[in-house]
């Protein structure tokens, strides 16, 4: 499972990195930075939580 970020859509709501701080981080502007490409085994639920809480649909999962 991979996480994809559409950086143009991210507006810095900050939901992903608050809910799953070891998968997502913030840059200086509070916008999302992916900490992993491939979701580590067993962390699928956290990845889903980060992705699905984004109000801008800037994040998605593949695979």
């Amino acid at each position: 499972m991979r996480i994809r970020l559409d950086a143009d859509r991210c507006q810095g709501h900050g939901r992903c990195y608050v809910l799953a701080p070891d998968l997502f981080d913030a840059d200086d502007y509070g916008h999302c930075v992916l900490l992993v490409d491939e979701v580590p085994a067993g962390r699928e639920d956290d990845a889903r939580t980060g992705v699905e809480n984004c109000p801008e649909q800037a994040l998605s999962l593949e695979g």
Partner: protein
Amino acid sequence: MDVEDELQSPSLMVDLASADDPRAMSEMLRQQRVHNIEGMFHLLTHRQDVEAALRRPAVFTSGPEAVQLGNIRPLIPLSVDPPKHVKYRRILDPLFAPRHMTALEGEVAELVNSTIDNFAASGTCDFHEDFAVPLPCTVFLRLMGLPLEDLDLFLAMKDGIIRPSGATMEDQAPTRKKTAENIYAYFEKTLEQRRRAPTEDLLARIMVSEVDGVRLTDEEILDICFLFIIAGLDTVTDTLDCIFGHLSQNPDHRRQVAGDESVIPSAIEELLRWESPVPAVPRVLGEDVEIDGCPMKAGEHVMLLIGAANTDTTDHPGVDSVDLMRNPNPHLAFGGGVHRCLGSHLARVELRVAMREWHKRIPEYELVPGTVLEYTEGLRSLHHLPLQFPPAP
């Protein structure tokens, strides 16, 4: 009165904020994707349409005509659209980024606790007057390095713009104009003082921020400060009122929050969604558009109904009830798109700390019996929220 009759009333937006049950009104409004309030504005009621509009700032513009509150120049960054908007958010976003805001937790906790000290032992308070009103303003003064003695002055400036006396926009205009002059004058004086005696606070950081090697002008800084007062103070008061209004009437939810601190962040997101203290955001059309067969012309005003979008079950089943542990909860209470609330991370720190410290000290509380809660117009706060509780140390 049927839906359309009711919608002809110019007080509609007022009603959505002050309704006892805005969810029921939103449900009624969602029966149509677009409502045309004759000669005044259009309403978008569905989540998909509100989201799409928030993401198209060139079409649904947030230009100076969208918000007219006595300001003589555009509010920065709200009344500026891309591409110029980008410059201001590049300066302001880092200053309001979560990592800076989270660092304020200790200081906010002190302010929260000293506010609670004023009434804890008495076993009663008007949560609105005694807590929800002073807290955000006190935090703001501290953040900006302004004297705490100016609290009443700031509250008067905020109310003079957001809640001026008078029944119509026309009646309210003179108060707004006078208050706006006071706000500009206050910050002009402050900027002058700061240049003589530099400080280290948010205002100081704004004064020295640069984009492409260029600092903000004094006018730009004034226009930012003006927006801070009208966007950053009342909205946190509104949200605190909404949250504690809900918890004081829903003892199961209150116990869930008081019994487990870890519920608080999620409870805040859920009650932001459910109450939507900012029930609508205004836009002005940059070009002609048509939604669901309704033609709308360039220059016309559109209200994006955040509250209605946040309880639209079309793509988000279950959002017609409260679940303090809701996941996912991608609500739009802070808006969305390029104008996403700049202060959202500060608001969250204030709300989180207020909820935590309050429930540590006053886990049990209820409405004073016989109270009928009345919500305010425009932005959803309470006129009064009288609470009683076992006296606390």
